[in-house]
């Protein structure tokens, strides 16, 4: 699972490692209920062509079932799939972060060092650029290492320090003159008065 096969690039660019089709994420029982809902919807639409009073009911049923199944599909995907990030080297000086999805069940007994949290969900981050060699089943394989950027000490200049250099509100106050501001306010006010006048005119005409 965690082999580094850099030669097979097309595999790594694949963003769905689970290999499932759109509705294959559902279990057999869920598929039966989905089919029953679809049949029910079509039956109601067919009946609505004979009994016109059923048209609104059929439309509501169709919309509710469509929205309900869309939300349920999202929930099922969230419960059964896990996001993986692969760090890959495309060329000697270009790296890639590839986001891919796999079945959560495959990682129940995997190494927890790869776990990170994203939006309160667990994701796994693999560094396929820096791999380690490991002997598995008599053959030597390249195993990706966990991405651990905080193992190296932070620099002396923090991101807040750099953000503070971009804060220039004092300079803005210093260089902005009052007269110029008044001109801008008057100009803006003039435009707003015209717009309001047009709105009032339209309302008056529509009233007539």
């Amino acid at each position, binding site marked *: 699972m965690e082999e580094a096969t850099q030669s097979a690039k097309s595999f790594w660019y694949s963003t769905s490692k689970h290999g499932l089709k*759109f509705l294959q994420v559902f279990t057999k029982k869920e598929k039966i209920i989905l089919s029953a809902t679809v049949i029910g919807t079509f039956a109601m639409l067919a009946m609505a062509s004979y009994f016109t009073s059923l048209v609104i009911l059929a439309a509501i049923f169709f919309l509710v079932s469509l929205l309900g199944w869309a939300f349920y599909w999202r929930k099922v995907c969230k419960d059964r799939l896990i996001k993986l990030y692969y760090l890959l080297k*495309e060329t000697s000086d270009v790296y*890639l972060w590839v*986001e891919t999805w796999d079945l959560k069940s495959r990682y129940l007994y995997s190494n927890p060092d790869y776990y990170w949290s994203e939006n309160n969900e667990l994701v796994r981050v693999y560094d396929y650029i820096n791999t380690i060699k490991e002997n598995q089943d008599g053959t030597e394989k390249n195993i990706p290492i966990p991405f651990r950027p905080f193992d190296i000490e932070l*620099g002396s*200049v923090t991101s807040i320090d*750099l953000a503070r250099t971009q804060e220039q509100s004092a300079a803005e106050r210093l260089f902005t003159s009052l007269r110029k501001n008044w001109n801008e306010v008057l100009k*803006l006010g003039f435009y707003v008065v015209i717009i309001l006048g047009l709105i009032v005119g339209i309302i008056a005409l529509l009233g007539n």
Partner: protein
Amino acid sequence: MKLLRFFGDNHIEIAEGELTGGVIKVSETEAYRADAESIGFYISAPYYGFGKPKRVPIVTTRVGDSTTLYPIEENYLCEELVSEEELKDFENASFLETQLKIEKGDSGNKKFQERILLIVMGILGTAFAVIAIFAGLPMFKDNVLNLNKEKPIEAVPIQATPIENINGGNNNGIFKEQTELNSELYGGSNPVR
């Protein structure tokens, strides 16, 4: 530009950053030095991998460190970290940029605002003109154009009809009822004036 931000508490976030003057600014309290060599690509997998992948440039950062990460390197770091001296250069650059913007009147932003106001005015003006035309068209047609050349209806004086002539002169029933009513009310056939 997108940033893949790694936090010290083991969580990650993808955020949008604004690139200005060699600095990528994420928020008021977070900015990173923009190094061309630290830019990589991110292939996203929308809709749980069922959607079409997208490829966008991305910068990898550690939140708390102003130097961006170089994931291609073994220790993920570039050789030159952001120094205190470099901070002064960034501050000077930012100050000069602000000064220049104010001297130019921040024309870009104001022009954009003006353009929006003018577009709104144009839409409202057009709407006003259209409604005004449709509202005033019938009056304009009748009074100014008079396309059908219809003659105005002349007023004919109407002569008042005596009560005796109503109903073709056959008013015996009415007179009888009136006489009975008068005798009931006033004790005679004619009302006392």
